[in-house]
């Protein structure tokens, strides 16, 4: 069923600053290069965002990505989503994939919520009747009410998060890639978001979650990859990897937070 595999995956991220953006500068550099054109072309600044990453996820795998800022987590997610094509290695994706990388979700801020949902439906190849249903589903789940007919530009950031999440999950993917911004939702929405995610993950689908909050990873993931400077530093079960990654006191704190959260969820659940 759903599968995602990265083999020797590398991404060189070219940095284009003011000068390398200019055709004039580039042509002069080539002309005055005294035959070192090849070298000049290589002279642009390249960040090796991801280096030689290998892993394979199959149905039921829920991978957490941890690592400090700039470790390559988001670039790796974008590459898994097929947005950045790798400069080395290979990605194989089996199954419908959806990526929740930023709350905007590529939406046009000047279009209304309804129009943006329609575009997403068309992108996914839905028929008109299905798009109408999608609009109802998303509006209801994101609690947009009459805001659905207003431009997305005027939405509060909480509404954006809700709309983005509802949109990415209403068309149910088999593989879901998530960056940590989803945690910006309010508590009530988080509860429902988790419910939807859990029903998805129970359906033997693949989740890749990049997050800094250890208790979320402990709760949602059954495998953790620790990224460091674009490379895999450690790969294994969440408890084991997080106990290496986090200082002991923070790890204990995360465990405690997890227990506390589980308790409040049980209490808040309707009988």
């Amino acid at each position, binding site marked *: 069923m759903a599968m995602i595999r990265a083999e020797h995956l590398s991404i060189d991220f070219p940095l284009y600053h003011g000068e390398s953006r200019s055709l004039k500068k580039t042509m002069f550099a080539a002309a005055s290069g005294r035959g070192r054109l090849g070298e000049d072309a290589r002279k642009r600044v390249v960040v090796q965002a991801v280096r030689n990453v290998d892993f394979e996820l199959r149905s039921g795998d829920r991978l957490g990505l941890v690592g400090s800022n700039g470790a390559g987590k988001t670039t790796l997610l974008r590459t898994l989503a097929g947005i950045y094509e790798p400069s080395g*290695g290979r990605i194989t994706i089996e199954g419908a994939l959806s*990526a929740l*990388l*930023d709350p905007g979700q590529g939406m046009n801020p000047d279009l209304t919520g309804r129009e943006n949902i329609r575009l997403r439906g*068309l992108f996914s*190849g839905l028929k008109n009747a299905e798009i109408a249903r999608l609009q109802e589903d998303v509006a209801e789940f994101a609690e947009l009410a009459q805001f659905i007919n207003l431009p997305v530009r005027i939405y509060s950031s909480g509404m954006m998060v809700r709309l983005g999440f509802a949109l990415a999950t209403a068309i*149910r993917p088999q593989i879901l890639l998530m960056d940590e911004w989803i945690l910006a939702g309010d508590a009530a929405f988080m509860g429902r978001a988790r419910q939807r995610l859990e029903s998805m993950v129970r359906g033997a689908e693949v989740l890749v979650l990049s997050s800094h909050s250890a208790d979320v990873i402990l709760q949602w993931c059954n495998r953790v990859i620790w990224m460091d400077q674009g490379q895999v530093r450690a790969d294994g079960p969440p408890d084991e990897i997080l106990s290496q990654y986090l200082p002991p006191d923070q790890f204990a704190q995360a465990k405690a937070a997890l227990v506390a959260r589980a308790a409040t969820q049980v209490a808040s659940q309707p009988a």
Partner: protein
Amino acid sequence: MSTTATRRTPKTVPADPTTLESLPIVSATDEGTVLNRRDAHLVITAGLGWPGLFAQTGRDLAETWTLRRLVWTLAFLDIKLRYRGSLLGPFWLTLSTGVMIAALGFVYSHLFKTNLHTYLPFLSLSLVLWNNFITSTVSDACVSYTTANTTIHAMRMPMSMHAARSVVRNVMVLAHSVIVIVIVFALENTWPGKTAFMALPALGLWLIDGMAVSLLLGGFCARFRDVPPIVASIMQIAFFVSPIIWSPQILKDRGIGVILLNWNPFYSLLEIVRAPLLNQVPSEATWMSALGFSAVLVVISTLFFVRARSRIAFWV
């Protein structure tokens, strides 16, 4: 939640074993629509040679074709957004073209001492085709990727989709302006005969060229940010040196005509659409030249896009 479930129960989608739609998924906790997306199977390999790059590009173009409803809707919404809240909407463009034709027609018919009855239909066709398709397509092509950067960074889409969107949008702009030509033709009471249908294959060639220009300039301008102003000045110069507001007949037998007519891609491409609509048959040489320039453009654009396609996401 229960309302969602009841609303969705009378699901009348025919069960197709090849789509995930046929899977029974409706339950109270389990919301959301399951569907089969195009990219259900995807392999991205780095460091492919030319054959692999061509195959990837072919798949990219094919995906854009399957997304044609999305392309159409995006183009339509672009125009709607551009004129949201304005009284006449996209017909502002039509109106401004009409006013420009009236003013230029009056001035130039005196300057060139030509007959307004023949000059006005010529001028209206030229200006509409040039301003409302050629120039707008080229200038939109320059920003077709840079303006779509949030979408490009949010999800995987075929790269050629953004170029197609820009072309379709400009076809819609042109369609709005046809009304100006019709009004001028009605006022002067000159209607093209059956010859006008010869403009159809030429318009088809324009679509291919428009797509090629959008793919080429879109990527190139995303990489080199000083290209759009260069392109804008080239188009400005091309407007004056090409027979758009002046008739190509003036230069027929002069030396400079060889350069301005025979070696000018804008002239031959414009002429194959314009001449039939003025009830003239474009010469075979004009058609050959238009096809030749188009072939060169398509080859350059293809080679560029095949190389650059996977890099555009890093450029925008």
